[in-house]
């Protein structure tokens, strides 16, 4: 099932349970998978037109009135374009607005460089009080949605729109602020968020063949980051690799380095090397950005060498 369909289904459940939950769009409800909610919940859905700044601040105004708005757009327009509205109208004013950015990083594919947001986590991570969550698959997303809905405060949900390979088993329980151990290992800690989580698991066999027993931890909540789990893993293995569909500046890699700054443990990165995006399909983009399984394997070997 596509991630946006799961997201829309879960949002519909939240809207059904609580009439104060509402949805705001900036002319991308169809793309975000929520257009049908407008028919089902006409009094709870508002398309603001192509005016993301207004959408963000209207969301804050509704929140100040006791409503629980979710605002959504493509990742660049839901984050960097409205950074000040998120900072001031939403976060500084401590409003309960959920911000959903769809098609992060290379997921923007054919929309190309203008729509390919590789800096969104970096842009938002330094705003106090804002929680940042990036789900991996439909199981994790389905488990996360009610938790995020119940959380009182601003959250940025970095959401892949289409189908993703399933990583989590049914019965998975989502715990906000708590990273998920996917595989225990003793030689290297791989910390990964979002899209590339499956690729890290796919790298395990080749790494084992090279004598590296990798521990893989999914960091679904990038802010606040689960320092305790990450530090414990890093101390155990003595080497870290971060893997993300984002610029290596400002995102998961930066967050992990900040958490491990006192640890004297090498931290290597698979991520976008401080460059803009470009148009192309996923295999091409993975190749030019260095986000393939073979890139993970190569970086993992380098990380272990640094021990």
């Amino acid at each position, binding site marked *: 099932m596509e991630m946006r369909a799961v997201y829309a289904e879960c949002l519909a459940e939240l809207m059904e349970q609580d009439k104060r939950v509402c949805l705001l769009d900036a002319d991308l409800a169809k793309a975000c998978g929520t257009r049908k909610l407008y028919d089902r919940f006409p009094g709870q859905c508002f398309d603001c037109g192509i005016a993301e700044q207004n959408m963000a*601040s209207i969301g*804050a105004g509704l929140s100040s009135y006791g409503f629980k708005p979710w605002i959504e757009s493509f990742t660049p327009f839901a984050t960097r374009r409205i950074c000040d509205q998120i900072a001031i109208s939403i976060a500084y004013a401590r409003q309960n607005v959920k911000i959903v950015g769809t098609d992060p990083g290379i997921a923007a594919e054919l929309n190309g460089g203008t729509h390919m947001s590789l800096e969104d986590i970096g842009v938002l991570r330094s705003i106090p009080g804002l929680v940042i969550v990036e789900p991996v698959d439909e199981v994790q997303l389905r488990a996360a949605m009610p938790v995020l809905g119940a959380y009182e405060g601003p959250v940025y949900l970095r959401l892949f729109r289409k189908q993703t390979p399933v990583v989590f088993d049914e019965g998975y329980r989502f715990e906000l602020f708590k990273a998920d151990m996917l595989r225990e290992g003793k030689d290297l800690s791989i910390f990964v968020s979002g899209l590339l989580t499956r690729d890290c698991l796919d790298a395990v066999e080749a790494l084992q063949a090279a004598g590296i027993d990798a521990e893989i931890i999914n960091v679904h909540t990038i802010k606040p980051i689960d320092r305790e789990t990450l530090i414990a893993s890093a101390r155990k293995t003595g080497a870290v690799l971060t893997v993300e569909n984002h610029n290596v500046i400002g995102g998961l890699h930066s967050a992990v380095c900040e958490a491990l700054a006192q640890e004297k443990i090498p931290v290597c990165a698979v991520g976008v090397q401080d460059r803009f995006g470009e148009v192309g399909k996923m295999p091409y983009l993975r190749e030019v950005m260095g986000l393939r399984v073979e890139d993970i394997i190569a970086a993992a070997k380098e990380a272990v060498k640094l021990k």
Partner: protein
Amino acid sequence: MKSDLKEICRDIRCDMMTCIGHLGVGHVGGCLSVTELLAVLYFEAMNIDPKRPDMPGRDRFICSKGHAGPAVYAALANRGYFDKKELLTLNQGGTNLPSHCDMNRTPGVDVTAGSLGQGFSCAVGVALGSKLSKDGATVYALVGDGESQEGQIWEAAMFAAAKKLDNLIAFTDYNKMQIDDTVENIVDIAPLAEKWAAFGWHVIDVEDGNDVEQVSAAVAHAKLGLGSGKPTMVILNTVKGCGVKWIEDLGVANHNTNVSEEQAKAAIAEIRGEA
């Protein structure tokens, strides 16, 4: 509660000058220009209860030109939201009265503003929230003329008209000045009334927005538009620094200026007609 609006205006101006003079600096020009509006809203027009600042269904006032915070605080203190002594804490570390309006700090402030353009969108969200809640509240919002150069103002204007938010009455403090020069010389917003009308709003043009009777009549007139299917914009032609001659005479330099305690005392005497 006092009912003589002219006297209330004098009180608000004097308290504002006292707290800005105590601090030594402040956004004095754009505070003085909106005094009559604040007196009319807080002492005549709005359904509010200072004893219950969170009263459900209360009318809201959102000061999108958030730098007029000191004027709002003087009005709130005079209306009884908090002790007037607290005005002297303006902008001091740990105060509940920061330079720009903050809903998490000040009783009676419903929306945080300061990054221009955003407060107005928030006000539109509040008006939508009131409509959805069917609580009958009227939402008042104040926009600066320089602030009207922000694109977000016009995004919000379009949305409010499109969604028929006829529980929203907005005001422009049209004092014709901004920080760097006159609004006309920077990027002119004229013809303002025609712009708002073209965006689908009722427009009321007040010749002298520092004549409290004209403002009172305009607000009463604007209330007739409640339920009409359209929001209303009241354009207040004001004077930046109104009520204190040397501040008025500073012209565009009066946006954020030094005010000594002696100057504040002289200004108060002038406002009271004792100079």
